[in-house]
């Protein structure tokens, strides 16, 4: 049925037609026609954030937790530019976010109108695609395409810029028969062809012949829902599994084949295994510099099989012996029958010999390790953790045993401080039955703590934990190790977080002793709404081990550096 609607009504209708029932946004001049239409569509829930950056992060969190596109809305000018950090975050971590921005009316574009910015130009390098809608007649299709492009292949953010007068234009609207499918379709990994079959065969042969093979699993495993296939490959071959920061929770950590996280803050035995390996099977990752260290010295004995959806990633950072381009799940399913059953027990025993017992590097009894152990015990592991960026992020990645798929969400590629609190709102709305913990440092928390108001107004029961050490801890750690302990601009004052929470009408607890951790976590979990727990931790605790930037994985710093001798 064809109806006559305004552009603004078309926007709402297309979102609903495409299965979107939740948007995060903030109104303003150039997006007012859209907000005028919005109350007519009760099925489309709008969450009013306190800053547009939070709308983008919340949409990102929603997308990562649900696998469906996360949608955020902002006005032109400052509204649109405030989305930028969130879009860049989603771009680096391949999250399907769709941003809708208002733009000044078409006759004003290019005249430096009030609240005009070239958001298409600004976001071009940090979106998968973006488009300025030139006329209402194309509005529905551009929006449908945006949702499809965001999800197809390797996901990513798409921005649709809609001039105010286009939102007011009338047009005839016909509902699409179905959800927009990806324009080009997810690249099928197996077009018939000898090339593909022989590459698969070559990969299987390499896996069969290797003496010291490893699997490195990344975000692609989560995106492709390839948990079972990954596990099958590991169990069929006995290959130990390394999970990258964004690959965490792609493989159960209690599994005997699980090895840990690689790279800059990876465990020594994991990095040593990489350096000794003669074969690495990379599944859905991009061999980022935080994973490889110095690429020239990365895995010097290993050949690489790279299973990856995005062809431009294969061979980008490290040379590849076999590149299998396709959805990780589909490729693994085709590879599995060709891989002969084997067991790598000798190699695993060798790796076990690399492992060292972790030495406690923390003074005082409230250690990050203890907090996370307690959090795991109290929640019985049944929660999703959204972390921010910095030292706590590494502790959360390494010290919480993730068993269930996609229960660890963090800003990996861009390393965006301030991500956790708003992203956790999106995660919680995607998982209404799941406890969601946003864990931040005192620096990152203060970047987006205004969103407590959003949680209260919209009744989003996120549990917030702050690891407060009074420093921008990771920067301080670098200053300690590499900049002569000159703690320039890293000491950071915090407000009284318990009072802050109370000001927002949220219960808060301060924990300074290990013995109080469990009670505080339990109390926070027992209230129905949002809650906050501040952990006052050791000020100069460090994340160990650490590979210095640009060094090889063979050169970890494993303990406190010697004190500086005054010159």
């Amino acid at each position, binding site marked *: 049925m064809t109806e006559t609607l305004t552009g603004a009504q078309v926007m709402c209708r297309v979102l609903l037609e495409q299965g979107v029932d939740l948007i995060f946004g903030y109104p303003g001049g150039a997006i007012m026609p859209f907000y005028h239409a919005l109350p007519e569509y009760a099925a489309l829930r709008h969450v009013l954030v306190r800053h547009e950056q939070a709308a983008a992060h919340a949409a990102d969190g929603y997308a990562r937790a649900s696998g469906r596109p996360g949608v955020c809305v902002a006005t032109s000018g400052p509204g649109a530019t405030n989305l930028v950090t969130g879009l860049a975050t989603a771009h680096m971590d391949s999250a399907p976010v769709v941003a809708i921005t208002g733009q000044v009316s078409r006759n004003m574009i290019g005249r430096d109108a009030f609240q005009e910015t070239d958001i*298409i*130009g600004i976001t*071009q*390098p940090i979106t*998968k*695609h973006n*488009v*300025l809608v030139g006329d209402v007649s194309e509005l529905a299709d551009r929006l449908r395409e945006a949702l499809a*492009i965001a999800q197809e292949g390797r996901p990513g953010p798409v921005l649709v810029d809609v001039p105010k007068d286009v939102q007011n234009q009338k047009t005839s609207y016909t509902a699409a028969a179905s959800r927009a499918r990806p324009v080009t379709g997810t*690249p*099928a*990994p*197996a*077009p018939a*062809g000898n*090339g*593909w079959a022989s590459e698969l065969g070559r990969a299987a042969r390499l896996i069969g012949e290797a003496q010291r093979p490893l699997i490195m699993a990344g975000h692609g495993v989560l995106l492709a829902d390839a948990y079972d296939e990954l596990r099958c490959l590991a169990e069929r071959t006995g290959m130990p599994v390394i999970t990258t920061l964004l690959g965490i929770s792609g493989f159960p950590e209690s599994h005997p084949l699980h090895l840990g996280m690689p790279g800059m803050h990876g465990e020594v035995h994991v990095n040593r295994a990489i350096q000794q390996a003669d074969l690495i099977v990379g599944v859905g990752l991009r061999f980022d510099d935080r994973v490889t260290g110095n690429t020239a010295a990365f895995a010097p004995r290993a050949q690489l099989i790279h299973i990856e959806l*995005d*062809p*431009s990633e*294969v*061979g*980008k950072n490290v040379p590849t012996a076999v*590149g299998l*381009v*396709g959805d990780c799940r589909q490729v693994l399913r085709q590879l599995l029958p060709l891989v002969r059953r084997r067991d790598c027990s000798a190699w695993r025993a060798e790796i076990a010999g690399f492992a060292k017992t972790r030495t406690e590097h923390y003074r005082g009894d409230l250690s990050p390790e203890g907090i996370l152990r307690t959090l795991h015990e109290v929640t019985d592991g049944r929660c999703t953790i959204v972390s921010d960026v910095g030292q706590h992020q590494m502790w959360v990645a390494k010290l919480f045993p993730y068993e269930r798929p996609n229960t660890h969400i963090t800003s990996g590629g861009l390393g965006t401080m301030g991500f956790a609190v708003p992203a956790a709102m999106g995660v919680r709305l995607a998982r209404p039955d799941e406890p969601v913990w946003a864990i931040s440092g005192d620096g990152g928390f203060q970047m987006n703590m205004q969103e407590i108001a959003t949680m209260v107004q919209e009744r989003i029961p996120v549990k917030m934990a702050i690891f407060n050490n009074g420093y921008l801890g990771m920067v301080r750690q670098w200053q300690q190790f590499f900049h002569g302990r000159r703690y320039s601009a890293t000491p950071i004052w915090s407000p009284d977080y318990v009072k802050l929470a109370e000001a927002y009408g949220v219960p808060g607890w301060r924990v300074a002793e290990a013995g109080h951790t469990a009670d505080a976590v339990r109390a926070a979990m027992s209230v129905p709404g949002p809650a906050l727990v501040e952990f006052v931790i050791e000020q100069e605790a460090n994340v160990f081990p650490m590979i210095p930037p640009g060094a090889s994985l063979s050169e970890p710093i494993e303990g406190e550096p010697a004190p500086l001798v005054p010159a």
Partner: protein
Amino acid sequence: MTGSQAISILLDHKLVTLNRAFGLLRRRNLPIKSIAVGPSASPGLARLTIMMQADQATADRTARQLDKVVGVREVAVFPARDGVVRELALVKVRPGEGRYAELLDVALLYKAGLVDESPEAVILEVSGSEAFVLSFLRALERFEVLEVARSGGVALERAQGAASQFTLTSETV
């Protein structure tokens, strides 16, 4: 091995699509020698030719990244030696007192056309490989060259017998 590589792209003939392609080249800090763009045989599509001084792997990687740009329809990458690469140059030159015939001799030698003539200066047009065009420009150095406009290379891969043909599809990577 580093050499001259051609990337030939069919893409939507829109400024925003071209801008996306150029933006990618800038962001990735690629060793670009020249960029030429013009209409293609298909209405609405432009042919963009990028010449780069790089190894085959860098050229392949560039092609794969360009292939992801929405609006890019087809990408082919080939070493310049496996295709035909030509560029056009227009040169405004002042022959100098009594040296007009000498200038015409040089133009004849390079099969350059005399496309504009005024009492002050002439405009010559030459086309050919980059080396040929550069050689022509060197030959003109003994006159007074006022302005040069070069198109940058346009290229097509040879129809047959190209040993290292590489057209992007997901399974050839």
